[in-house]
């Protein structure tokens, strides 16, 4: 089995998550070939073949160009699986590759179980083993699911790709980086976060009161922020802040991977949820099965005494 690992590279840097591709390939016992659309200074240090396409020539992510570069390497190497991390890069590019190769794509693989690919579904409540039926397979792996055991070592055999490619029909205009305003939750010792279970904006003071009683900060999931119930700077998760408080209290939060990625480094996690099977239970040290609208005020009252 041979795996082509499509590394992700942004704004001059190889993204750390790319190393997870190597961990996945190792778990699969696959021979590894990597593709980096970056520059010489940023080639993963592993003792195998690395195809390098110069980012100064091809530019930042452009779907058409990246698709053609990957297909070129697929042509040369004839890999069995083409692997990307399930990020805004991977989920954008992978289906384009799958369509061109008429290959099955499995999205967001979380594990390899008895040789089968395990996927999470129904917001983390269930798992599936999905069997691809095509010779070639395109796979995206869940970010954080395959952790490298040791740093890579070795000297890669670098093969430069030099193709003349047209940029296709999507033009990249630039990046917009959110201004850092508002609170920095990364330093908070206690965070009380509200999820959609809070129901409406009028109920937010319940969360604020508990945070105040504990001397902590208020955080939230994305739907709470999208609904305008709390400012964006308080969002925890992959598209918000990454936090690591001593105590994280998740109120009415289901526990989607995108949220968990931002708070799993917390020392102690309490989840309050009326659904005993909510996936947040998997990362919680304590799961309180209760209605937050009743439980949280009662807790605040007792703590304030």
């Amino acid at each position, binding site marked *: 089995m041979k795996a082509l690992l499509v590394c992700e590279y*942004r704004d001059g840097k190889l993204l750390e998550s790319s190393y997870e591709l190597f961990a996945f390939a190792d778990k699969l016992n696959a021979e590894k070939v990597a593709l980096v659309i970056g520059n010489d200074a940023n080639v993963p240090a592993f003792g195998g073949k690395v195809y390098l396409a110069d980012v100064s020539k091809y530019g930042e992510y452009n779907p058409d160009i990246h698709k053609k570069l990957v297909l070129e390497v697929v042509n040369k190497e004839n890999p069995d699986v083409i692997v990307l991390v399930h990020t805004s890069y991977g989920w954008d590019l992978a289906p384009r590759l*799958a*369509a061109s190769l008429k290959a*099955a794509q499995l999205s967001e693989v979380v594990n390899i179980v008895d040789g089968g690919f395990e996927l999470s579904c129904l917001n983390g409540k269930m798992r599936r083993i999905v069997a*691809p039926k095509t010779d070639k397979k395109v796979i995206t792996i869940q970010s954080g699911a395959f952790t490298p055991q040791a740093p890579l070592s070795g000297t890669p055999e670098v093969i430069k790709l030099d193709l003349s490619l047209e940029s296709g029909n999507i033009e990249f205009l630039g990046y917009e980086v959110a201004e850092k305003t508002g609170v920095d939750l990364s330093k908070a010792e206690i965070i009380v976060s509200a999820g959609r279970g809070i129901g409406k904006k009028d109920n937010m003071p319940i969360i604020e009161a508990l945070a105040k009683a504990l001397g902590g900060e208020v955080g939230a999931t994305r739907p709470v922020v999208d609904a305008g119930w709390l400012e964006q700077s308080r969002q925890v998760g992959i598209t918000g802040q990454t936090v690591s408080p001593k105590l994280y209290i998740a109120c009415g939060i289901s526990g989607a991977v995108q949220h968990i990625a931002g708070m799993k480094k917390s020392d102690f996690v309490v989840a309050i949820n009326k659904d005993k099977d909510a996936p947040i239970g998997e990362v*919680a040290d304590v799961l309180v099965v209760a209605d937050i609208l009743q439980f949280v005020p009662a807790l605040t009252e*007792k703590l304030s005494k």
Partner: protein
Amino acid sequence: MKILVCIKQIPDMESKFKINAEGDWFNETDVSFWMNEYDEYAVEQSIQLKEQLGNEPDVTVLSIGPDRVVESIKKALAMGCDRGVHIKDDEAFRKDPAQIASIIYEFAKDKGFDIIFTGMQSQDRGSAQVGVLLAEMLGYSCVTTVVNFAYDNGVINAKRELEGGIKSLVKTKTPAVITCQLGLNTPRYPTLPNIMKAKKKELITLNVADLLKQEAVAKTEKFYYPEKKGVGMVIEGDLAAMVDQLISVLKEKTTVVK
């Protein structure tokens, strides 16, 4: 201008899922279904675009699934789409994303849609494939994970959401597929008069057998509950007792509650 919106119905994620007899998905009895959240943003964006262009565009909303999906199509019609297409398929849950995309492709290929809106992903499967695959099949341009959308005279300017607070700004031309991310807009609630009006809108029913040209490329072999990893503590029961129990655990296990 012709616009297509693709919507999927998904189960209430707070349900207790019971494995079906075939062992490849869940039993639908006692489970409520509604429109995939991401697709609500897709519907809203299509209507905003229609309004921006003085109501000229014609918006078709399409869903593949059993009869229950008509409920969600009706909601989209009440929000402002012009016409519904129900591709009836009781086995839609067994289809892989490539098959779903190819069914939509067969429907859309000769209709000349200028813009197709889909969700970035479906909440139940989260494959994030259908929109992109459809675009590739149609030879359309495709921008995914869109949190900001602007249209002017055949040109689309969009912001894609990347990780860690970064967005990328991209420009493309129609025809295009746009996959919608959470927060793209604020989906409207259908008003009662609009719900009434929607009842008179055209609803076309097609049979999936006439549109399915692609064999499955992936198959669910097993469907099961995840192993409970962290055997965390569960507190249940009487309110006052739960409060007391939690406070004593916090005092014992953390340094920040005294």
